[in-house]
């Protein structure tokens, strides 16, 4: 009985690892695609500059979310505090950048 139970657990673990591997590979593929899209958009002439800027920054944010949630396992359970820490940091960083972008006496 005990061996059968451990066999089942082993099987479940193996399946979980298989699925995890698929997640990693799909995330990596998507990240490569986002990178190619960003470089491609910059190379194409005739697209309004502010549109390109907005588009590639959005791509960067999405790519980073994949990195955080899949490669750094933020999607897994017991990641409440890490999520809080990293997004608090990101919020402060965002406000700082926003301040310096809209600063009026440099440009």
């Amino acid at each position, binding site marked *: 009985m005990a061996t059968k139970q451990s066999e089942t657990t082993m099987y479940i673990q193996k399946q979980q*690892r298989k699925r995890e591997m698929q997640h*990693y590979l799909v995330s990596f593929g998507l990240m*490569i695609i986002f990178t190619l899209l960003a*470089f491609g958009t910059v190379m194409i002439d005739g697209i309004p500059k502010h549109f390109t800027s907005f588009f590639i*920054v959005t791509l*960067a944010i999405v790519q980073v979310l994949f*990195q955080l949630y899949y490669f*750094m396992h933020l999607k897994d359970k017991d990641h409440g505090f890490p999520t809080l820490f990293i997004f608090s940091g990101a919020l*402060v*960083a965002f406000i700082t950048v926003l301040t310096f972008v809209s600063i009026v006496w440099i440009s």
Partner: protein
Amino acid sequence: MSSVKDNVTALPLHPEKSTLEGKNKFLGFWFFLGGETVLFGTLFATFVALRHQTSGGPAAEDIFGMPLTFLSTIILLTSSLTSVFAIMAMRDNSLGRMQLWFWITVILGLAFLGLEITEFTEYMHEDLGYTTSAFSSAFYTLVGFHGCHVLFGVVWISTLMIQSFKKGITTVTAPKYYVASLYWHFIDVVWVFIFTVVYLLGILGG
């Protein structure tokens, strides 16, 4: 007799978080990464504010090249994946496979550093020194600081791998490997914003 061998059967499913010390390292390291995010945020803010102040020196669109940036990006992105594989191997309790993937990560990190040094030397020859303009200072500080992080990561992971020959994968060493891989992913996270904000927006001239 051999503590490494005993652990082959006894390693828990998530060895990096099976002890209180491991849990603390995990939480503490994420807290550190939050702080690092703020630090890089300030450097990005400085760069974005000063990126047009070239003071007669070369501007971003004069010097940045797409192919080199693209190559660096792919190298760092791939190294992120290889360190994920290393952690998978660690959870499978397969020391050799973990070492292999971490060594590949280190080699890719070194390749990235080599490219960055070549790039900076080239800029120096094009008269973009550290003190040439506000743009150049902000650029070298931001990208150079990221480069220092890559260097630190390379040294850290290499020394961990040397230690791993002796200590193997245990509930004591697993948190170290896990945290080092988190650091390496964070380096890639920062680079994603650098290649977008510094290089691509620079080439765009936006």
